[in-house]
């Protein structure tokens, strides 16, 4: 069996391309677990970061520095009574969160964490991603309708209008990135892996391509993506102060947590798309400029060092905790967590060292795989921070203003950028 695993680690294509359903299934499971874990981590991180923006501490009680808070929350939600309003449409009420969740998670099938670290490399990857993420709106609309209540209905109508209109700007921004893939070879590609590879070939992230056209398209995409995921400052659908909770007002317990899971999964998904299209996906910084093997080695140390730094932060946290019987369990818990992080760091460093020896060995491939995933996740994490930052900083747009921004500002700008990209591309080539 180890040989079997190792033989796959040496593969250079995605399991979908190889037609290997077994590995594709394993990838799907890994991604599902990882995304769920990421959502849990994001939950904790959002609460902590938001709290520190707002001069509070955030969760501190459940586990050291509230590390176990998301788990406690999940348990609480799972154990809560699952209320279906008497007048609600039972079946639709039941299926609505599932639709949202399915749409959010299906997008991950085409997201490339590395040149072979994806479930599948569809040649219509970008279109698939746009289409599937647009299905998420169905869950919201249907949830609002099935609740048979005014606030959810208004929330659902708002968010459906919002998501449908921002999808247009989003799609056009994506098209301008796709257009850039055709610059050197003459034929563009819609495959997500192909897009990253063409950034590698052209030696430039598309955010810097045809400066500032790529940048403008990227910024437009980011704005549209925040609106698309119903996050502040575009969180009309769940505007707490206006519509109590928008489309999920009537939901409780596990079902509600499915909505949350879908929302965060969708956030991570759209961020991954932005990273893939404009920020070079899995590519490390300056892959062309600093391409000596020594640089490869130095950059391959980053994952281990990152985990080492996290472990150091945890150790500092242990040191700073008051020495008091009350904090004994928490200290021990944090120390164990630090040890865990340190162990991961050590493991990653060992792999980086092992992969140094030669290029074609399994260890080298494994090291590369970790590198790819590391850089990808790091870029996505920056986007996650951006989401939180926006939420902490800005007031909420009003619905009509939101639509105005979408149709009268974002859409024309994106359209002009698209046309200019085409013109510049023709002139250059």
């Amino acid at each position: 069996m180890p040989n079997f695993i190792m033989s796959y680690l040496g593969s250079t294509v995605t399991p979908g391309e190889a037609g290997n359903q077994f590995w594709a299934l394993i990838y799907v499971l890994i991604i599902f677990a990882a995304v769920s874990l990421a959502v849990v981590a994001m939950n904790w991180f959002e609460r902590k970061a938001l709290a520190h923006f707002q001069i509070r501490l955030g969760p501190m009680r459940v586990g050291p520095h509230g590390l176990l808070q998301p788990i406690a929350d999940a348990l609480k939600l799972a154990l809560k009574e699952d209320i279906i309003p008497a007048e609600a449409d039972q079946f639709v009420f039941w299926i609505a969160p599932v639709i949202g969740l399915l749409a959010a998670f299906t997008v991950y099938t085409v997201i490339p964490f590395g040149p072979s670290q994806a479930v599948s490399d569809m040649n219509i990857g970008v279109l698939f991603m746009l289409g599937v993420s647009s299905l998420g709106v169905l869950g919201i609309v249907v949830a609002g309708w099935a609740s048979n209540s005014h606030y959810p209905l208004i929330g659902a109508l708002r968010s459906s209008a919002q998501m449908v209109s921002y999808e247009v700007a989003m799609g056009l921004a994506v098209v301008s990135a796709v257009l850039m893939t055709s610059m050197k070879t003459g034929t563009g590609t819609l495959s997500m892996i192909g897009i990253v590879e063409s950034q590698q070939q052209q030696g430039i992230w598309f955010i810097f391509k045809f400066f500032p056209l790529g940048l403008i398209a990227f910024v437009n995409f980011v704005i549209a993506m925040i609106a698309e995921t119903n996050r502040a400052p575009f969180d009309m659908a769940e505007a707490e102060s206006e519509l109590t909770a928008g489309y999920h007002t009537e939901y409780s317990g596990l079902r509600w947590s499915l909505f949350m899971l879908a929302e965060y999964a969708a956030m991570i998904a759209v961020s991954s798309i932005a990273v893939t299209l404009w920020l070079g996906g899995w590519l490390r910084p300056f892959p062309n400029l600093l391409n000596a093997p020594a640089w490869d080695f130095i950059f391959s140390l980053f994952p281990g060092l990152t985990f080492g730094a996290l472990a150091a932060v945890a150790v500092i946290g242990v040191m700073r905790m008051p020495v008091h019987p009350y904090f004994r369990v928490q200290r021990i818990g944090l120390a164990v967590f630090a040890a865990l992080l340190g162990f991961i760091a050590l493991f990653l460093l060992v792999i980086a060292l092992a992969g140094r020896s030669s290029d074609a060995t399994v260890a080298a491939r494994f090291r590369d795989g970790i590198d790819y995933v590391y850089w990808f996740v790091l870029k996505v994490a920056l986007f996650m921070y951006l989401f939180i930052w926006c939420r902490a900083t800005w007031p909420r747009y009003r619905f009509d203003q939101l639509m105005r921004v979408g149709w009268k500002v974002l859409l024309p700008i994106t359209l002009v950028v698209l046309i200019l990209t085409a013109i510049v591309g023709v002139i250059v080539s």
Partner: protein
Amino acid sequence: MNPSLNMALISAFTTTTDPGMAPVATPFFFYLLSGLAVAGGFLVITRRNPVHCALALIVTLIAMAHLYLMLYAPFVAAVQIIVYAGGIMVLFLFVIMLVSIERASKDRRFNRIWPVGLAAACALMALFVSAFVKGRALFPDRMIAIPEGSNTQQVASMLYGEAGRMGQYTFAFEIASLLLLVAILGAVIMTKKKI
């Protein structure tokens, strides 16, 4: 475990050695998807509640998108999901919510002349059946593989043309976009309260 067994394991999970994205387990998925599509279509015309109908139609549309994928038409499949499931059906749901459906759910489902309609449809079905039975030979069993990797590109070159030449359907495509524009304007004007 020896290497040869590994290879056997790998090949057991691999139905094809073809590096392209050939559909797998075709009959199973075909029957599954077409069953879903037809069941969805049946629910569309029988359910009382329009929202249920819309959901059933969405199931049909997604199943048909997968059928397109099996027919080596990934671009059409993507367009189907983006435009139909993500756009048109949201529009439908939007409208269903705008027009109150409390009354509609209590009303009669079918109109008074439904037997006539059903009879006409049955006649149509009979026509189809006879055509299929008699003209079975007209539909050869061949399936020519279309190169899937460049499908989008080929469709694009038919629509837009390539290397500076107009495509075969460029003019028709422009007309279609004009049609969409007119439709948008018409819809906006009709739904506007006061012009």
